[in-house]
C-alpha cells in the first residue's frame, strides 16, 4: 500500500534477513522477571471506562507441549518470513509495497492454532503472517511477492492479495475493511452448509472505522454466524494514532452494540490469544455466534517496509517498550522454563527455518514470470452449475 519515504535518517538499523533470532532478541536480553512483569502490566490498557459486561481480559492456562511448540513454530516462521521479505523489499527486489507483520505474530499463531484447512480466514493488507500461520508454504509465498507464475496467485496478486483457498485463506486485501463482509459471508456459508467450521476476520484498529466492518458485525450477530472478528489493534492506521481516529480506547467496546461478546486480550501474549480465541471459536462452532476479540499489539516496523525507528508519528521509546515485550522472545523464555524446549532446540528451529527460507527465495527467483497470455486469463471462469 501507500508508501511514504521520509527524509529522516533511520535511527535503529533493521535486522538483516539472516538473523537467526527475532528482532527483540538482538537487544540486551531482558531479565526473566522483567519480561514477566511487563506481561502482567502491559503497556496497553485492557480496561476502559465504558467497558461493557461480556468483555474480559484473559489469563494463561495449560495446553500440551505439542501445542506450545506449534505456537512457537508458527510465530518464528512468520517472523523469519517477514524479516527476509522485508529485507528483499528494502533491497529493491520486491515490486510494490510490503506491509510487515513483525511484532504481531502472537495473534496469527494463537488464533490459527485452532483452525483446520476447512476453517476460513480473511486477512488484511498485512497478510503474510496470517497465511503462514494458516499453513502457507514459503516457496509459493515468496514467488507471489516477486510476481512469479509459481506464486500462490500466479503472480497476479502480490503481497496485498496473497491467498490460498485450499488452505481456507480467502485473501489478503488491499481494501481496509474489505475482509469482514467476506468473512461474514463465508461464516454464513458454513452455517448454511451445516458444517462445524468457523471463519476468522482479521482487521485493524483503523479498519474498525469502516462501515463495512459495522455491517458485517451486525449481520453476523443477527444470524448468529460462526464468525470471529479479530481486531489487531496496533494503535495506528498508517501514520494516524488510534487517539486520532477514534474516541475510544477499546475497539471491543463496540461488541455490545451488535449483541456479541467483546473480549480484550494482550496480543503480545500468544497463550492469552490462544485461549481467548479458543473460547470464541468453540462458542462459534457450537452455534453461539460471533465474538469480537481485540488483541492489543504493535507493529515494529513502519506501515510499509522495514523502517522502525525515528518516525515522526511515534516515538522510539514507544517502539522499544513494545519490543521489550516481544511475543516470541518471551514465549521462548517460558518454553525453556517449562522444559518444553531448550535454547539449543530453539536455535535450531531458526536455523532450519532460515534455511527453508533461503531455499524458497532461491526458488522464487528462479521461477518464471507469467506469460503474456496469462494476462487475460481467469477474469472469468468457464460456466457450469
Amino acid at each position, binding site marked *: 500500500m501507500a508508501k511514504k519515504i521520509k527524509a529522516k535518517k533511520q535511527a535503529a538499523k533493521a535486522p538483516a534477513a539472516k538473523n537467526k533470532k527475532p528482532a527483540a532478541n538482538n537487544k540486551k536480553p531482558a531479565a526473566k522477571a522483567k519480561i514477566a512483569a511487563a506481561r502482567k502490566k502491559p503497556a496497553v490498557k485492557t480496561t476502559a471506562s465504558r467497558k461493557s459486561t461480556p468483555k474480559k481480559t484473559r489469563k494463561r492456562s495449560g495446553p500440551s507441549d505439542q501445542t506450545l511448540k506449534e505456537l512457537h513454530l508458527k510465530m518464528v516462521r512468520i517472523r523469519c518470513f517477514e524479516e527476509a521479505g522485508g529485507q528483499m523489499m528494502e533491497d529493491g527486489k520486491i515490486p510494490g509495497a510490503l506491509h510487515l507483520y513483525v511484532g504481531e505474530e502472537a495473534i496469527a499463531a494463537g488464533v490459527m492454532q485452532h483452525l483446520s484447512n476447512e476453517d*476460513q480466514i*480473511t486477512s488484511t493488507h498485512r497478510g503474510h503472517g496470517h497465511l503462514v500461520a494458516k499453513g502457507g508454504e514459503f516457496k509459493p509465498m515468496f514467488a507471489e511477492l516477486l510476481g512469479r507464475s509459481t*506464486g*500462490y*496467485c*500466479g*503472480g*497476479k*496478486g502480490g503481497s496485498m*492479495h496473497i*491467498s*490460498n*483457498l*485450499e488452505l481456507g485463506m*480467502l*485473501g489478503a*486485501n*488491499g*481494501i481496509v475493511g*474489505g475482509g*469482514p*463482509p*467476506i*468473512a*461474514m*459471508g*463465508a*461464516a*454464513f*456459508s*458454513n452455517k*448454511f*452448509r451445516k458444517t462445524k467450521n468457523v*471463519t476468522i476476520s482479521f482487521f485493524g484498529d483503523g479498519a474498525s472505522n469502516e*462501515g*463495512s466492518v459495522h*455491517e*458485517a458485525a*451486525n*449481520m453476523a450477530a*443477527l*444470524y448468529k454466524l460462526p464468525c470471529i472478528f479479530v481486531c489487531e489493534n496496533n494503535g495506528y492506521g498508517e501514520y494516524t494514532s488510534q487517539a486520532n481516529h477514534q474516541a475510544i480506547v477499546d475497539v471491543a467496546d463496540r461488541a455490545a452494540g451488535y449483541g456479541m461478546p467483546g473480549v480484550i486480550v494482550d496480543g503480545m501474549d500468544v497463550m492469552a490469544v490462544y485461549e481467548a480465541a479458543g473460547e470464541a471459536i468453540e462458542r462459534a462452532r457450537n452455534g453461539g455466534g460471533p465474538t469480537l476479540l481485540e488483541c492489543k499489539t504493535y507493529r515494529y516496523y513502519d506501515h510499509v517496509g522495514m523502517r522502525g525507528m525515528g518516525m515522526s508519528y511515534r516515538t522510539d521509546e514507544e517502539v522499544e517498550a513494545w519490543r521489550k515485550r516481544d511475543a516470541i522472545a518471551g514465549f521462548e523464555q517460558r518454553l525453556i522454563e517449562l522444559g518444553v524446549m531448550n535454547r539449543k532446540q530453539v536455535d535450531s528451529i531458526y536455523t532450519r527455518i532460515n534455511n527453508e527460507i533461503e531455499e524458497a527465495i532461491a526458488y522464487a527467483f528462479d521461477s518464471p514470470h507469467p506469460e503474456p497470455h496469462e494476462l487475460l*486469463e*481467469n*477474469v*472469468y*471462469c*468457464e*460456466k*457450469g*452449475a
Partner: protein
Amino acid sequence: MSEAKKQEARKIPYVAAIKEGVREVLLEQDNSFVAGEDVAGAGGVFGHYGGLLQEFGPDRVYDTPISEKAIMGLGVGASATGCRPIVDIMFIDFIGECMDEIANQMAKMRYMFGGNATLPVTIITMSGGGLSMAAQHSQCLEAWLAHLPGVKVVCPSNAYDAKGMTIAAARDDNPVFVVFNKASLGMSMEVPEGAYEVPIGKAAICREGSDLTIVAISRMVHEAMAAADQLKDLGLDVEVIDARSVQPFDTETVIKSIKKTHRALIVHEAVKFGGIGGEISAQIQEQAFDYLDAPVMRVGAPFCPVPFSPVLEEIYIPNADTIVAKVKDTLEL
C-alpha cells in the same frame, strides 16, 4: 443448456417471471439461497419473491438488515465457499453503498487469486424510472458495472428473458448482475413453465429490417419497437435488437445487422453521457466503419438527475417519439 421450447400459451407478467426464475433455481440448486432486504417476509417490495419463504423455508430465503455492503459481502464470501447465493439489492440506485464490495472484491477476486476463487453469485436488482420516484430511486447504472472486468451484467426486457436470464445467471459460475426494470413489472407475455435458460452474452433480434438497426436496452426495447412502427410510415424498415446482455456484449450480432442496414441507433434509459451507448457506438464504427451511411445515433437520458415532477420525468425518459425525432433529425427525413 439451450433454450427450452415454449410450451403453451401461458401468459404471466414480468414480475411473476422473475419469481419463477428464482424458484427454479432454488429447486434445482440445493446450495442456493436468496438474501436481501424484505425478500423473505414481504416477498420483495415488488412481490418478485412472493411465497418463496413459505415454499422453501427460512433456511433458503433471508431478510437482511439494511446493509448493502454486508449483503454483497455475503454473496462474495458464501459463493467463494460452496454456496450459490442470490443476493438482492432493492434498487440499483443503492449499489453506491456496496461498489467497493462489487468492484474490488467480487469482480477481482478470481483474477487476483490467479484463478483460485470461483464466485457463482447472482445479484438481482431493479432499475429505471417512470414511477415518479425521483433522483435516488430511478437510475440506470449498468454502465458502472459493465466497466468492471470480472462481472457479467444482463438487463432482461421481457418476462421470458426475465425468467430465463435469472436461471442462466444462477447457473453461471461467475458473478452475474440481473438488472430488472421496475416499470416493466406488469408486462405480460408467454412464459414456459419449468426451467430454461436465455443465454448470457447473446442479443436478440426482435424485429427484422433493412434500413436501420436500433440497439435497445431493457425497457427501451419496447419504445424502439413502437418507434419502428412509426418509422415504417416514414418509409424506414427498422431492425430492432434487444442487447439483453451488456457485459459481455454481443458485438457480433449487432455488427452483422449493421452491415446489412448501414445505419445504427442505440437507445438506453441511462444518462447518455458516459452510458453504455458510447461503448456500443464506438464498437460499431470501429468494426463497421465502411458500412455506415450515417453517424451512429444515440438516444439516452439528458444530463441531469431524474426529476420527481411527472411532467419533467416524462420529458426526461427516452421514448418512441424521442427515438423517431432523433432518426428524423439525423437522417434529415
